[in-house]
């Protein structure tokens, strides 16, 4: 996702963008090229939507090393957010990059919920309530 972000920013023709701000502490960008505006907007929206999942994924990586259960939870939440962002993009403009991210997210969701991974991160605790409930139909 970071790679896609870099690619999106790299595809912007920065030479057509000028800084109109006179104040050294502020940036005010302007361009007349509509294609550049579109690319710039897309890159910014991508950053807004995928920034949190990327940070969460980095934290989950750390979590897996330190505290497995938390890491798994963070990774799952990150995947949910990533998928939601992709589906939003898909509904609005169907950009090319949503498809590989969706495919990657599906695989990761299946991996995170696979028996081998869950067995490591969620050691099953059998409580009495996990025993079978009764089947009643009369008396």
């Amino acid at each position, binding site marked *: 996702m970071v790679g896609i972000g870099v690619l999106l920013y790299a595809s912007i023709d920065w030479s057509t963008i000028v800084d109109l701000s006179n104040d050294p502490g502020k940036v005010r960008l302007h361009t007349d090229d509509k294609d550049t505006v579109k690319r710039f907007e897309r890159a910014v929206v991508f950053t807004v939507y995928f920034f949190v999942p990327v940070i969460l994924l980095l934290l989950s990586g750390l979590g897996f090393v330190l505290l497995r259960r938390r890491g798994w*939870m963070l990774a*799952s*939440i990150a*995947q*949910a957010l990533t*998928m*939601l962002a*992709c*589906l939003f993009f*898909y509904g609005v403009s169907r950009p090319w990059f949503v*498809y590989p991210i*969706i*495919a990657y*997210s*599906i695989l990761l*969701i*299946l991996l*995170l*919920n*696979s*028996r*081998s*991974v*869950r*067995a490591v991160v*969620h050691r*099953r605790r059998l*409580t*009495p*309530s*996990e*025993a*079978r*409930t*009764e*089947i*009643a*139909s*009369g*008396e």
Partner: protein
Amino acid sequence: MANEEGIDARTAEELLRRFEPVIRFTRGEWFYPVDCEPYVDACSLWVKRPDEDAVCVVPAGELTLERLAQQPEDTTGAVHYLKIPDPKRDENLGRRARRRAQRSHTDPDWPKQTFHAGRGRLARVGYISRLAAALFSLVLLARGRVPGGDVEGGRVLYGRYMEEGERFTYHGNVVRQDGWIVLRYWLFYAFNDWRSNYFGANDHEADWEKIFIYLSESEDGEVRPEWVAYAAHEEAGDDLRRRWDDPELEKVGEHPVAYVCVGSHATRFFRGEYLTELAFPLPRAISAVRRILRRFWYVTLRQYADEDYREKPYEQFTIPFVDYGRGDGLSVGPGQDREWDPPRMMTPVPDWISDYRGLWGLYTQDPFEGEDSPAGPMYNRDKTISREWFDPVGWAGLDKVPTRAEELEVITARRAEIEDRQESLRSELREKSDRLRELGMDAEATRDRSHLSKLHEKGTRDITELSTEVETLREQLSNDEVLARSLEEHAASLKKGERPPAHAHIMHAARPVSEAETHAGRVAQLWASVSIALVLVTLILIIAYERSHLLGALVFAIAVFAFIEASFRRRLTRFIVSVNVALAIVGTLVLLEHFFWSVIVLAVLVVGLYILWENLRELGS
């Protein structure tokens, strides 16, 4: 088949009294085990013939157990049933019984106290179950059901009986079957008010429950209790019974302790609250699709399951209810709050048991039968003989278990049988091996001789057949040897007094829900109570005011409700997994929609490459 051979009424009563159970009720119980005679005396007898209105054949006050046994006006398709008298018809008695009931709240000597469902009853089940439970209640209006006034009638009838003196009675019967002596304690309750008063699944007039104790008898006539089985709803099989030396089986001296659930009178081994499910089979097509999806998800994709994945023979839809077996109320039995009165003996079997095949209370014609009263101890509702009557040993899954006194005898007999079979197998094997060798020589002698080719082909076929037979015989012989050795080892361990684990026979133990689940927080309970109404109101508001973003708003609202629910029920992990799975499914559909042909081409390419790889690997090896 169970029989009463060698057991007279006196011996039967002595055995019943020696091992009679201690029963612990839940605070708030209205109906305790009583003698069925006063109940029958107070009821009227009705008969319902197909396509006709029910008619009263014996009015209240004239019915007796003897009259009941005659089952008057019996015809094809007729259903006989008893009916509790309407309390309004006898105002004096009704008022007196009501006064008694009111007094019970303040009288410390009287066990009835107000029942509290406690926090978390609704919080224990999810939205779908809550909605299904609400629909189930609505469906009751269309189904046959016990009218609300009948509960009052049952209370008045029972109150009248207790007014004459508190009595706690069971019905006893002792039989022999397959080496076992079975003590059968039949508990009769005037009413099952589980639905009306304890948020349960059903109500019905009259309730027959049972506790069976299985004794073995030594050569000198000493009896020893070995197993005990408690009835819960309509279950049968191994899970119902516990071994007498099971450390989990609570006993007071020689008396097993049972916890009776309030209203339903289901009998349990442990005190607590049980999540009981009413099961309805799903339509075959839906069931098949669900089974395929489950297999794909858990087996093919190797996805995680909370319980070990098991292929279910049939899929079913369940509505959960809570069975309260808290054991904090009255305790009846030897040395308890109340002692048992002398039992009503059913040895020899009285006519009112064997000859009355009708129901013991109102016949509501409920298609699910839950609201219909039960038949007596001997019969099912459809008038067939009940398994617990003719096969009490098989009912609790003991038909495969010999008594302790017979165990070594059974092993010795089995080993003798195996040895005989091994002898005959060895002889047959010798004979066939010799024949196989002869055929082998024939085949060798006829090979590559054109004029003997047919003979050679036939010989080869015979060799193949005989080889298979010899292989099967050798396998049988080998299995028998292993089995004989195992039996020998098992006999040795039994001689040393060792026993297999007490829970080895239990597949699914019925256990109460955990303390944590029982005590959900106040907010969780409040949420559980209002959530269904809130969901419905939200849906209506979305449909009314957000039609332009209907799908998005619905998804968002459902997600928010599901998140709150999951938080209260401490199931956030499951919630996140469910959300991810749902998103993955939508994502898959998106990919399929966009890359359908590419996916097909890629799949074919992958299969082609795999086949190529396999073939090349074979060439290289």
